[in-house]
């Protein structure tokens, strides 16, 4: 395949930096520390006009980075897989069913580009659970770009100074930005600088091509150079991968070279040919597919981290209701996306669940 002939016109990149808090005692924002207060907060937010309230209204003080609070779920199929009840009753299940909140961090950011002609539109948010959070950056790339350009963007995100908070003079590296937001979240939602939290080693990243011209990137007919380019999408390093290219491929449909995810550690690049159609309904379905994949993986990783840290956590021990809910959900995921099923079938997760059961 001539990968160079593939012209992408819209791509979305979602990145999530996950943290698990081991001890929430003394959290600055009361609603995050108990079942009742957490559900009440969800109830308040759901009842508020526009289904959002200011952070100050929830916690009584101005947040250092957190601003508006919204439910981290919507009246959509994905969440109905997670919780099969009337959407109006979701707030009452918020604690036991581990429903998150979403806050919007301040300030907004822009992405410092190299000399690319396409646009990169960023959005940030923070997903809040009683036991942790994840800082999300969603980048929508609009305009003609190639897969090699996309790989350069990923490289720039992970290795360059690419994030510039509005008003700041110098751009930050991604890890620095995540660090700054994490400090703010610790202060706003947990125990400040004393928060005992564990971060995932690698952020979760899901990339999906939403629109393109020309040939599609077949997983089964790439030259070694093209394979290297593709791998850079999920592995932004110059080091040669020890695994063969085929081991990075997860077929979303059996042996379909145009419906696959390229996977490396916590990074996923998805090509979903059946939905890569300019028609509006396909476009919406593709966007949903991306969102569901990202959210399900992010949720599964949060739940896995909660279980993995439960032995050392004073707040969320192995008998805690949240940990038990997490175990139940990971044992039998309710949203059966291919990639999340793959994740829960990894030996690491299986061993963890066996250990908890024992």
């Amino acid at each position, binding site marked *: *395949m001539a990968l160079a002939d593939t012209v992408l016109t819209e791509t979305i990149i979602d990145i999530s930096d996950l943290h698990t808090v081991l001890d929430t005692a003394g959290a600055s924002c009361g609603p995050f520390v108990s079942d009742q207060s957490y559900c009440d907060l969800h109830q308040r937010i759901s009842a508020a006009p526009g289904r959002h309230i200011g952070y100050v209204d929830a916690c009584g003080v101005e947040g250092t980075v957190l601003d508006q609070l919204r439910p981290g779920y919507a009246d959509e199929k994905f969440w109905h897989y997670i919780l099969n009840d009337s959407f109006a009753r979701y707030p009452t299940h918020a604690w036991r069913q581990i429903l998150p909140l979403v806050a919007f961090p301040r300030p907004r950011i822009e992405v410092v580009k190299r000399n690319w002609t396409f646009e990169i539109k960023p959005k940030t948010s923070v997903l809040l659970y009683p036991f942790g959070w994840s800082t999300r950056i969603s980048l929508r790339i609009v305009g003609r770009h190639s897969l090699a350009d996309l790989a350069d963007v990923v490289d720039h995100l992970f290795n360059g100074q690419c994030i510039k908070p509005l008003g700041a003079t110098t751009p930050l590296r991604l890890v620095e930005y995540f660090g700054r937001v994490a400090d703010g979240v610790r202060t706003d939602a947990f125990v400040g600088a004393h928060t005992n939290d564990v971060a995932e080693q690698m952020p979760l990243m899901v990339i999906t091509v939403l629109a393109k*011209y*020309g040939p599609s990137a*077949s997983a089964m*007919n790439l030259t070694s150079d093209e394979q290297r380019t593709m791998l850079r999408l999920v592995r932004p390093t110059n080091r040669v991968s020890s695994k063969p290219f085929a081991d990075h491929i997860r077929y979303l449909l059996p*042996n379909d070279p*145009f419906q696959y995810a390229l996977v490396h550690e916590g990074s996923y690049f998805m090509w979903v040919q059946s939905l890569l159609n300019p028609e509006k309904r396909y476009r919406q379905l593709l966007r949903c597919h991306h969102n569901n994949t990202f959210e399900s993986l992010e949720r599964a990783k949060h739940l896995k981290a909660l279980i993995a840290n439960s032995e050392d956590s004073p707040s969320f021990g192995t008998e805690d209701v949240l940990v038990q809910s997490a175990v139940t959900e990971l044992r039998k995921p309710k949203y059966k996306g291919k990639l999340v099923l793959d994740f829960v079938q990894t030996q690491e997760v299986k061993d963890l669940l066996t250990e908890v059961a024992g």
Partner: protein
Amino acid sequence: MIVTNKSAVDVRNLTVALFNSDFATLRLPSFPTLLPGFNSVNATASIEANPSAQFKQQQVLFALTYNWISQGQWVTAIQGSAVSIQVVRPFDEEAKGLLGGGAALLYLLLPVIPLVLGYQLMDRSLSGKFQFPTFGADYVVPAFLVAVLINLILLLAFKQLSVDYAEPSTMVAIILGSFLAGLGFAAARRYEDVRLVISWRYDDHDESLTYLKKALLRPDAPSAYETATGTDSEGATWSGVLLAQPAAGPALGATFQVSTPPPGNANAPRASHAEVDQVFTDGSIRPGRAPRRELVKLLEEHKLVPNRAVGITHDGIAKDTNVVTSLKELHITGRTATQLVRYT
């Protein structure tokens, strides 16, 4: 035939006639109007035995009629001349070549054996399972019957034809003609196969468009395709779209994606949505030959661009060709449905 005028008198209007109902005249000679005294003339007469002629020594009488002047008067005279001719059965001479007259049988079969071999050669070549032709014992009886019939037909249709196998050129012509007739008969019987071999045979060097054209538009092209995996006689593993190579075993091909060229050059041809919709539904080619013909047309007009989707693999390594035909006894171990071409 030599005619000598033994007198001093000139002889005029000399003619010859055959007087024997068991023989038919094929050609009688014409003599000069004047045969002067003490002169001779030679000529050739051709006759053949009628079916009524007995197989024995025959006396054939030729009557020579001529005019001469006797005492100032023209007179007509007739003189007879008998010729001894041995009438023998066909292959009578050849039959003496082998003990028991076996040679006659072989000569009888001579036109049939190349015919059968030629037929087998073509038939087996077109079936894709080539073996060197054989003339087995089970062929003897039908071949003998065919031989008798052929010789009978030749005898009835070409009575004047005298086949002399002792003549090398005749023998070569008979063998070659018979062989070609066998080839032709098999080719006619398997006309579709011959057409496939000539026009639709895959080649390892086929370009994308040629390959797709052959795979999609060949007579009796399958409506659905399968990816086959298997091993060849050397134990190497293969994977690719299973194709039928005319007059050979299976061939393997690549699957393709076709897409519209990126916009940019306004003058460059691009397939419209309507044109694409005529050919594809949800990325898959519509059933029937018309969408396939339309697809090939769009590819020929460069309104759609083909790119390989899944190549052929040999021991896990992708081959850089669209089709592989030189497979040695591929043993297929798995098949899965696949799309030969899809719109992306």
